[in-house]
């Protein structure tokens, strides 16, 4: 395991995973996720439908964003097991945009609770929570 943590070490209050830049996602990335997930909602492909929904251009799937959370946490703490993951999609992320993902332990112990934030510049676009168990 890489990183400063020993195998099985509990997550500590206030610990933070290094922030990671995600994206920008291309139209091809969105198409690949649509094919892999089966979610072909035209909102993500049709500029006219996106415009009718009040968006400047088609957004990426919220689940494409959420799908990045588990790999992010696993890269930080490969010894931890995800038992709950939840997300609120606050603002759409448009294709071509990049965001920053960060995570902080807000309740230590086993399981530990982490708050994940996704920001586009200073704007919060997604707020999530992960519950992790660290097997000894």
């Amino acid at each position, binding site marked *: 395991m890489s990183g400063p943590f020993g195998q099985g070490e509990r997550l500590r209050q206030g610990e933070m995973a290094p922030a990671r830049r995600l994206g920008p996602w291309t139209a091809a*990335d969105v198409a*690949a*996720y649509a*094919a*892999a*997930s*089966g*979610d*072909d*909602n*035209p*909102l993500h492909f049709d500029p006219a*439908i996106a415009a*009718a*929904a*009040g968006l400047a251009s088609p957004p990426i*799937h*919220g*689940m*494409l964003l*959420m*799908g*990045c959370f*588990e*790999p992010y946490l*696993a*890269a930080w703490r490969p010894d931890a*097991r*995800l*038992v*709950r*993951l*939840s*997300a*609120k*999609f606050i603002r*759409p992320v448009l294709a071509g945009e990049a965001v920053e993902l960060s995570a902080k332990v807000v309740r230590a112990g086993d399981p530990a609770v982490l708050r994940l934030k996704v920001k586009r510049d200073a704007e919060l676009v997604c707020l999530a929570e992960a519950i992790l168990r660290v097997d000894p």
Partner: protein
Amino acid sequence: MSEEAFAVAATEAEVEAFRAATACAQDGDILPSTFPMRWLASPAVRQMLMAAVPELGLVPVHEGQSFDYERPLRVGERYRLTLVSRRETEPARLLVDGRIEDADGAVLAKLETILRLVVVGEPA
């Protein structure tokens, strides 16, 4: 409110494609935590969900999602996915609760999906 159950499973190829699309470097036979979304997009599930939203001119916008795992799900295993959907108004939403059970009926995972229904065209 409607409830329906579906037989689901994940092939190695499906999981590989899903991992590639979400830049998930993990391997092994455990499904990515968000993989069950693929089952929600299957034709049978879609038919159930579309029946709950018969109006034309609405598109779903994902507002919230959660997954709770008692045990990991694995490639090649067969599961029973039971979904309960219900509508909310003002604002218009479709809420979907799901549970995933093994062959013995043990609940391995639960999920909740919140879709905001946005008008993008003239209602029929």
